[in-house]
C-alpha cells in the first residue's frame, strides 16, 4: 500500500507546529461519507442545514437565483447571506406555492431542481441525494424557522497539505462548530461545503473533499460553508530532487520563512547576487537613482564583511530616499492637484516628506490623516479627506489603504468571498459622512449615508465590529454607554487571528471618526500593519505576499502566510517604523539573491528563489535616463534640478512620464506585474523628442565625450558604467569597438547616438535585476 506523507500545519498563536503523518492512501480515499453526525433532530434547521443544501446545489449563486433580480421570478440572497429573506422567498412568496406541506416531495422547490418538472437551471438536486432528503424532511416537519442553531466557526483539516507528486490525492475534512444554546456542537459538513481550486487547472476537488493535484506548485483550495470562507494550501513540490535541498543561507527571520517554503517546494535558490548587481539594485530600490561609477567602485572595493549592511544604512539616510518613498506615499495617498489644487497637493506632499524624513511611525501618520482639519492649502494632512469625493469613496480608500481590503463589493451586496456586509460598508462610510471636503476641511453638525437596504441613515460602524452609535444619525451616548469597540480580527488569516485579536473593551468616544482612528491604530489591530508591510514588501520584492495588495481575504491567501504574520508582528512591535521594515527586507538573503535562475527555478515568480526582475518605475526611469545622458529633465514651473522622483503632484505636465504610464493618482494604481510599455510609448521612444533630444544634446554624453576625441574604448566603458553600473565584458567591448570607431566625426557621432539609444532601451538598463 503506497503511503503519502501529509504535512499538517496547525497554526496556533505565534507558533506553528509541523509534523508528519503517514496516512494510507486507501484509508484517506475511503473516508466515511460525511453525514450529519449529531443525534437525530426532529427537523433540519433552516439556516444551518437547508441553506447549505441550496448553496451546495448552486441555487443561490450569482448566476442563478442569487442574482440581484433573481431568476425565473424566484430570488434568493447571494450565497445565502440573508436567511430571513430566503425563508420568506421559499415559504411565503408566490402565495406559498413553492412548498407543499402535505406532499413535501411535490413542493416546487424540490420538483424543479430534481427535474420532476422542467427547470431552466437543470438537474441540481437529484431526489436520491441527501440534499433532497434534507429539504424534504424540513418541509415535512412544517418548515420551522427556529434559528436556534448558529454557526460559530469552521475548521478545515488539515489547513495545508504537501502532496509529493502530481496525481496524488488527499481528502480534507470540514468541521463546523454550531452554538446550540450554551453548547458548541461540532458537525462534519464536508459534503455541504463548497470547495474549489482557485485554479481549476491545478487541482480538482471532489464533492467528498478529495483533492487531486494536477500541477506542481502551491495551489489554494477555497472552502466555503455558509458565511465562512477559508483556504487550504496544497503544495506539490516543483523540484524533483529527493534529498535534502542544498543548504539555504539565512540572514534574518524572513529567510527562515522563505526557505521553509522553498524546502516544501524543493526549489533550488539562485546564488547571492554579485556586489555590483546588489549595488545597482539597492540604489534603485531604496533611493530611485542609479549609483555613479565612483559609488559602485567604492562599494566594490570595500572588503568589510558588513559592506552590504553599511550600504543599506547609507542609502536609507540619503535625501533621495525621502524623495522616492514620498513619491510612493504620494501614489498610495493619491496626491494630485486636480482635486486638491496645486496648493493642496504641495501642502500634502510637504507633510508626507516631513513624515518620511523624520520616520514618523505609520500609525501616527494615520492618526494625523484622519484627525486633520482646517485650510487644506496650509494643513497638508487635511487633504486626505479631500481625495475622496464623498463618504463612500473615502470608506473605500480607507479600507484599501489601511485595511488592505476591498470593501466596495459590500456596497451593493454582502461580499461574496469575504465576511464583509453591507452594514460594514455603509457603516464605515457613515463615519465619514459629516466631513466637509471643501478647501476648509471641517466636521459638519450632521451628515448621513443612506443604507440602500433600509433606506435609512446607516449607523457608523467598525468594519467587522461594533456599531459606533446606538441610533442612526445620533451620536452614541458617551463613554458610560459601555459599548465596546470590536476586537480586531483578521478574516484573511486564521493563523493571525488569535495572536492579535486580544479582547479590547475600549469605551466609545462621542466621535465615530475618533473611534475608528483608535481602532485602526491600536497596537492589537493587525490590519494596518499587515496591509502596510505587504505594500512595502511588494515595492522591494516585486510581488506582494498577498496580491493584489489591497485584497486581503481568506479566499485570497498569502503565498507565505506565516511570513506575512511575522512581518506584521515585527513591524508592530518596532513601533510602525518604516525604515526598520525596509532594512529588514533588503537585509534578507531572499532580497539579495541573483535574478538569474539556477537549474530548476526558472519559472518561479512568487517564492523568492531568485530576485524578481521588474521594469523601472516611470519616474525612476526618467531620472536614470537624465543621469546617464547628463541632460536633466525640466518640469514646467518646477525648480530646475528637481528629479522626477521628487515631484509631489502627478499632474505636473510631463509627456515622458505620461507615456511611461505614471500613476495619475485618480484611482488606486496597481501596476501590472509584467508591464513593458505601450505602443504610443514605444513609438515615442523611437521617434519622439524625449529620448532623442537627450541623446543628441551637444552638452550630453555623446556630445561631450565623442566630440572631444575621447577614445572609443573609454566611451564604451563609460556608457556601460553609467547605465549598467558595470564594465563591458571583453566580448561586448570587442563587439562595439569596430562600429563605433569607423568613419568620420559625423558618422561617429551618429553611431555613438544610436549606440546610446540602444543602451537606454535594452532590457538590462530598463529593468531592476
Amino acid at each position, binding site marked *: 500500500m503506497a503511503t503519502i506523507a501529509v504535512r499538517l500545519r496547525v497554526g496556533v498563536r505565534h507558533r506553528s507546529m509541523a509534523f508528519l503523518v503517514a496516512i494510507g492512501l486507501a484509508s484517506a480515499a475511503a473516508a466515511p461519507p460525511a453525514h450529519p453526525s449529531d443525534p437525530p433532530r426532529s427537523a433540519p434547521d433552516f439556516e444551518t442545514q437547508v441553506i447549505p443544501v441550496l448553496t451546495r446545489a448552486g441555487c443561490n449563486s450569482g448566476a442563478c437565483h442569487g442574482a440581484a433580480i433573481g431568476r425565473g421570478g424566484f430570488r434568493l440572497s447571494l450565497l445565502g447571506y440573508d436567511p430571513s429573506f430566503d425563508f420568506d422567498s421559499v415559504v411565503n412568496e408566490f402565495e406559498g406555492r413553492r412548498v407543499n406541506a402535505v406532499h413535501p416531495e411535490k413542493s416546487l422547490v424540490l420538483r424543479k431542481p430534481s427535474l420532476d418538472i422542467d427547470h431552466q437551471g437543470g438537474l441540481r438536486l437529484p431526489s436520491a441525494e441527501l440534499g433532497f432528503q434534507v429539504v424534504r424532511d424540513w418541509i415535512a416537519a412544517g418548515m420551522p424557522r427556529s434559528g436556534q442553531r448558529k454557526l460559530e466557526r469552521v475548521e478545515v483539516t488539515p489547513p495545508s497539505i504537501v502532496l509529493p507528486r502530481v496525481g496524488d490525492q488527499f481528502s480534507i475534512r470540514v468541521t463546523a462548530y454550531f452554538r446550540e444554546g450554551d453548547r458548541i456542537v461540532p458537525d462534519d459538513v464536508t459534503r455541504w461545503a463548497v470547495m474549489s481550486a482557485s485554479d481549476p487547472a491545478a487541482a480538482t476537488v471532489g464533492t467528498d473533499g478529495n483533492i487531486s493535484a494536477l500541477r506542481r506548485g502551491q495551489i489554494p483550495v477555497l472552502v466555503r460553508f455558509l458565511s465562512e470562507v477559508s483556504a487550504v494550501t496544497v503544495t506539490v513540490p516543483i523540484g524533483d530532487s529527493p534529498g535534502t535541498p542544498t543548504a539555504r543561507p539565512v540572514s534574518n527571520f524572513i529567510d527562515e520563512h522563505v526557505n521553509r517554503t522553498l524546502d516544501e517546494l524543493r526549489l533550488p535558490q539562485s546564488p547571492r547576487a554579485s556586489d555590483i*548587481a546588489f549595488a545597482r539594485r539597492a540604489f534603485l530600490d531604496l533611493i530611485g537613482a542609479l549609483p555613479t561609477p565612483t559609488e559602485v567602485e567604492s562599494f566594490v572595493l570595500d572588503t568589510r564583511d558588513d559592506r552590504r549592511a553599511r550600504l543599506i544604512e547609507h542609502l536609507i539616510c540619503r535625501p533621495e530616499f525621502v524623495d522616492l518613498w514620498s513619491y510612493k506615499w504620494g501614489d498610495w495617498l493619491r496626491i494630485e492637484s486636480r482635486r486638491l489644487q496645486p496648493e493642496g497637493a504641495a501642502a500634502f506632499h510637504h507633510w508626507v516628506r516631513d513624515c518620511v524624513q523624520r520616520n514618523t511611525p505609520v500609525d501616527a501618520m494615520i492618526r494625523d490623516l484622519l484627525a486633520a482639519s482646517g485650510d487644506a492649502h496650509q494643513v497638508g494632512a487635511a487633504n486626505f479627506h479631500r481625495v475622496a469625493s464623498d463618504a*463612500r*469613496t473615502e470608506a*473605500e480608500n480607507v479600507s484599501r489603504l489601511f485595511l488592505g481590503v476591498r470593501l*466596495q*463589493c459590500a*456596497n*451593493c451586496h454582502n461580499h461574496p468571498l469575504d465576511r464583509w456586509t453591507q452594514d460594514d460598508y455603509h457603516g464605515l462610510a457613515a463615519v465619514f459622512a459629516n466631513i466637509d471636503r471643501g478647501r476648509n476641511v471641517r466636521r459638519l453638525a450632521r451628515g448621513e449615508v443612506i443604507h440602500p437596504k433600509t433606506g435609512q441613515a446607516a449607523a457608523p460602524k467598525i468594519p467587522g465590529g461594533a456599531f459606533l452609535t446606538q441610533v442612526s444619525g445620533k451620536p452614541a451616548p458617551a463613554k458610560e454607554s459601555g459599548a465596546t469597540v470590536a476586537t480586531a480580527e483578521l478574516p484573511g488569516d486564521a493563523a493571525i487571528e488569535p495572536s492579535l485579536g486580544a479582547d479590547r473593551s475600549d469605551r466609545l468616544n462621542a466621535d465615530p471618526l475618533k473611534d475608528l482612528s483608535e481602532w485602526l491604530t491600536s497596537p492589537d489591530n493587525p490590519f494596518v500593519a499587515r496591509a502596510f508591510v505587504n505594500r512595502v514588501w511588494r515595492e522591494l520584492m516585486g510581488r506582494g505576499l498577498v496580491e*493584489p495588495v489591497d*485584497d486581503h481575504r481568506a479566499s485570497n491567501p498569502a503565498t507565505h502566510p506565516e511570513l506575512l504574520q511575522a512581518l506584521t508582528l515585527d513591524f508592530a512591535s518596532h513601533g510602525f517604523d518604516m525604515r526598520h521594515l525596509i532594512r529588514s527586507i533588503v537585509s534578507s538573503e531572499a532580497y539579495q539573491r541573483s*535574478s*538569474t*535562475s539556477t537549474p530548476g527555478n*526558472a519559472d518561479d515568480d512568487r517564492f523568492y528563489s531568485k530576485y524578481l*526582475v*521588474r*521594469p523601472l518605475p516611470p519616474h525612476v526611469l526618467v531620472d536614470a535616463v537624465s543621469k546617464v545622458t547628463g541632460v536633466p529633465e525640466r518640469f514646467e514651473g518646477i525648480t530646475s534640478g528637481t528629479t522626477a522622483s521628487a515631484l509631489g503632484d502627478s499632474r505636473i505636465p510631463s509627456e515622458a512620464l505620461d507615456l511611461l*504610464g505614471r500613476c495619475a493618482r485618480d484611482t488606486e494604481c*496597481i501596476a*501590472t*506585474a*509584467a*508591464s*513593458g*510599455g*505601450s*505602443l*504610443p*510609448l*514605444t*513609438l*515615442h*521612444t*523611437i*521617434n*519622439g*523628442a524625449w529620448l*532623442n533630444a537627450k541623446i*543628441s544634446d551637444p552638452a550630453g554624453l555623446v556630445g561631450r565625450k565623442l566630440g572631444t576625441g575621447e577614445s572609443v574604448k573609454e566611451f564604451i566603458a563609460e556608457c556601460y558604467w553609467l547605465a*549598467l553600473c*558595470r564594465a563591458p*565584458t571583453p*566580448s*561586448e567591448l570587442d*563587439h562595439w569597438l569596430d562600429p563605433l570607431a569607423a568613419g568620420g566625426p559625423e558618422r561617429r557621432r*551618429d*553611431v555613438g547616438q*544610436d*549606440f546610446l*539609444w*540602444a*543602451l537606454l*532601451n*535594452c*532590457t*538590462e538598463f*530598463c*529593468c531592476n*535585476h
Partner: protein
Amino acid sequence: MVRCDGVNRREFLRVGALSALNLGIADALRRRSLADGGNRLRNCILLWLDGGPSHLDTFDLKPDAPVEVRGDFKPAQTSVPGIQVCEHFRRLSGMMDRVCLVRSMTSELGEHNFGRHYLLTGYKPTPVLAYPSYGSVVAHVRHDLASPAALPSYVAVPQFSEEAANGYLPGSTRPFAVGGDPSRPDFRVRDLNMPDAMDADRLERRRQFLADFDRLSDQVEKNAISQNRDAHFEQAYRLIFSPEAKRAFDLGLENSAVRQQYGPHRIGQSCLLARRLVEAGCPFVTVTDNGWDTHGQIYRELKEGFVGGYAGRIPLLDQALSALLDDLTVRGLLDETLVLVMGEFGRTPKLNTAAGRDHWPRVFSVLLAGGGVRGGQVIGASDSRGESPAERPVTPTDLARTVYTLLGIEPNQEFHTSDGRPVKVSPGGQVITECIG
C-alpha cells in the same frame, strides 16, 4: 537580422508586395468575415457628439409643440417619406434610406461622465469596476486578427475620454489616439514619422544595436517584461515601416475632391481619417466631436457656430456624416462598417433663459447606418413635447447588445477582470431586432 519573436525587414517588404499584387485589404477582410459564417465580424466608426446633442433640434423635431419647446429650426422632409429631420441636415436628409434613427433612447444618467460611460459601454457606471468601451471590447476580441497593415485595433481621432477606454481590459486594448487636428495642413500622427535627423538606415542600426545589447548581456534573462517590450517594438517598427499604415494615417494622400467633400474642418477630416483607417483594416475608430453641450445660445451654436460664422455643429456634422456614408457606399464598405452617431444624452425640452437647453437623459435619439442596419426607418418615438419615450423605449444596454450583435461579437461572451471576476460583454438588454436588416 531577426529578433527572436519578430518579423525581419524582408517580412515588411513581403507584406508590402502583397498589396502590390492588388490583394486589397478590404477584399482580405471580406473573405475573412465571410469565412466566419454567421458570426460576421464588422468594423465600426463611432461619431461621438460630446456634450449631448439636442434631440429636439437634430433628429426629433416637434413642430407642433409650444414655441419654448420647438425652438427655431424647422423639420425638413427627407428622401424617405414620413421621416423628417432638422432642415440643416441638407445633405443627410437625401440619404435617409441608409439611416436608421432610434428616437426612444432613454437613460437616467444626466451627468456627462456617467452618461458617457453608460452609452459607450452599455453598463451604468459603478465605483466597483470600470467597464470597457465598445472599441476596447472589439480590440480585445480581435487582438489575434492582426491588421495586415499593422494598424492598431482601436484608434481615437483625435483624442478619447477615459470612459471610451479599456476599463478592466488589458492596456493593450486602449485606444491609440492620433492627437492633433486632422484638418490642419501640418497634421501628422504623433511619433509615426522619424525625426529629421533620422533615416531608415539609422533606425535599422538602432534596432540592430538594441538586439545586440540584449543578446550580449547575460545579466537579465528573457522575461515577460522584455517580451512585451519586444512585441511593442515590433509593432512600432511594423507601423513605422508599413507603407499601408503610413498611407492610412496620411490625409495628404487623399484625393482633394474627396477631402473637400468631407469639409475643411475637424470633424470632416476626422471622419475621412476614420474611413481611411477602417479601409486599411482597423476594426474600430472613434471620432469625437466636441461642442454639443449647448447650455446657451443653442441655435447659434448649432447653426452658425459663432456670430457671423458660416457653420455650426449641425452643418459640419451634416457634411462629414453624409460624405462618410457616400464614401463608404462608393467603396463598397458600408455593409461591413457600422456607423454609429450619438452623445451621452438629449437636452431639456424647454429652452432655458440663456436660450439653451440643459441635460435631458429621459429621451433622446441615436443614429445608426451601414454595418447590417436596415436603413430608411425610425424606431420608437418620443412624446409630443420630446420629454419621454412614447413607444418602444430603448436603453443604452439594449443599444449595446444590438451594436455587439451587429459587430459579430457574442454579447454573452465572458471576459475576466484583473482579479478574476467574470464579466459578460453585454449581458442585459434586448437586441433592437427591427434595426437589423
